[in-house]
């Protein structure tokens, strides 16, 4: 019966639960779903990570290639995050060129990476104006069940922390490159920005880490990105207005979560490196 009721009157179904201060999956309003991080599972990539938040699954893989730096930024390499929302992750997407949602989220992730300065692009330069690394970080959503940005950020950061680049001997006069793959060095990741998504239901209830149905039914979504003690980015695309108090409360929760997530990521990366 419950299934039928849920699909016929989804809003009422959720409201009934919320009036008893509990969510349909048994969590309280401010509870987060369990997070699983698995690092370096894809051997063909230079670094990779699979992240599950509840049922939301995101895989990230980094492929490193060599290129010439841009003439206006000769000392910098490239880091190009790209989020794919393929048709296989949810019935709402179609195959073909990236949807608006994918484009918007890609831009958001790229902005977060740039603002948080977690990667120093100058680390990626091998020889000024001649040779630099370009890291293609492809994020692919495998199961879309809400709080996508959170999962993407964890996946991207753990993936970057697992990236190892070979040493390069470059002779600019003769244009000879020699790659020494026995000497792999890890990439320096300076900060760990962590995103936390909240959903506002019926303008008053604030739900942490919403699942996809909650995201679809709610009146507003809010994503807060925290790096250490610093606030990196607050992304609130319209929806229900929030009071300052509520906002500060969310930020506090995000800070707490960021700490535990950072520990989780570091642990996963450390275990892999053992």
């Amino acid at each position, binding site marked *: 019966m419950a299934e039928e009721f849920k699909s016929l009157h989804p809003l009422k179904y959720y409201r009934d639960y919320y009036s008893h201060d509990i969510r349909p999956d048994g969590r309280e309003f401010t509870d987060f779903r369990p997070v699983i991080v698995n690092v370096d599972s894809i*051997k063909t990539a230079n670094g990779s990570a699979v992240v599950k938040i509840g049922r939301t699954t995101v895989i990230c893989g980094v492929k490193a290639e*060599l290129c010439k730096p841009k003439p206006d930024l000769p000392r910098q390499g490239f880091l190009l995050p790209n989020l794919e929302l393929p048709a296989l992750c*949810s019935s709402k997407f179609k195959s073909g*060129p990236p949807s608006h949602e994918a484009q918007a989220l890609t831009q958001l992730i790229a902005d977060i990476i740039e603002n948080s300065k977690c990667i120093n692009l100058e680390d990626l330069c091998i020889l000024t104006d001649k040779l630099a690394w*370009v890291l293609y970080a492809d994020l692919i959503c495998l199961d879309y*069940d809400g709080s996508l940005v959170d999962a993407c950020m964890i996946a991207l950061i753990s993936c970057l922390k697992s990236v190892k680049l070979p040493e390069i001997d470059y002779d600019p006069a003769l244009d000879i490159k020699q790659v020494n793959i026995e000497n792999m060095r890890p990439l320096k990741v300076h900060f760990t920005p962590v995103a936390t998504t909240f959903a506002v239901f019926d303008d008053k209830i604030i739900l942490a880490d919403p699942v996809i149905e909650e995201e679809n039914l709610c009146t507003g979504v809010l994503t807060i990105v925290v790096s250490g003690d610093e606030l990196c980015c607050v992304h609130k695309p319209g929806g229900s207005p929030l009071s300052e108090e509520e906002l500060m409360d969310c930020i506090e929760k995000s800070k707490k979560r960021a700490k535990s997530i950072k520990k989780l990521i570091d642990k996963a990366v450390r275990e892999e490196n053992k």
Partner: protein
Amino acid sequence: MPLDHKRLNGPEESVPYELFLRHKQETVEIKTLDEVTKDSDISREHPKIYLKTGTVSQAKGSAYIEIGETKIIVTVFDPKEIPNKQDYSLKGEISCEFKYAPFSCTKRRLHQQDNEEKRNSLIMKKALESAVCLHEIPNFQVAIHSLVLQNDGSALSGAIIAAGVALAEAGVPMFDIITSMTLEICRSNEIDSLRKMTGQIQVAGEKSHYGTIIISKLHANEQICQVHQTGFIPGDQLKNYITVLSKSCDSIAAIVKKCLLKEVVNHIK
């Protein structure tokens, strides 16, 4: 190539660093052809397979498969009405998408489907068409999406096996269990003599690539529903290879059955 305005664009040109390796490694373990065909154990020699259903919560049916180091995820969604169709069609349709993740191969893949991926989609579609009871879903289309997360050979076969399981989980009526296997034939060195050719199921290393045979099989009636081969192989040897592949498909069928049984048992619980 035209600029892709829907993604972030990096430098115009970049090259994989693997091209400039100091020490080229010989990774391929070599066996002569005679050894392979004489080896009666070859049917059991297919790489380890791990198969699991229900990996994607949003999809009607889904499966994850690992063949050796190859990792593939396949999802099936509810049948939809065939888009842009004017007449009523008695038979349903299957649409298949086969895609490599950009980081799944030694060389980075682009986001758009390339020719190989299109060809594989077509082979996959043809193979699955003969396994699904298309007459039971008139005027409807079943969309199958497959994504290769890591490629270490046999990606197409893996996708076909996983798609068969995912279709079963989604409750799409099927005639039979479908399995598939790939044989990659490698050459020991650059001498172009067939005697020097070596065969081995599942060999990585694209440089020594000689040819590929892929077959796909329906088991109840011993029917081969898709076969595709490239390379330059004498007819008699080709028959041997196909026999070997067919046997190895039989052992995969057992794995598929076990996996489906587990799925059903879980469901009842």
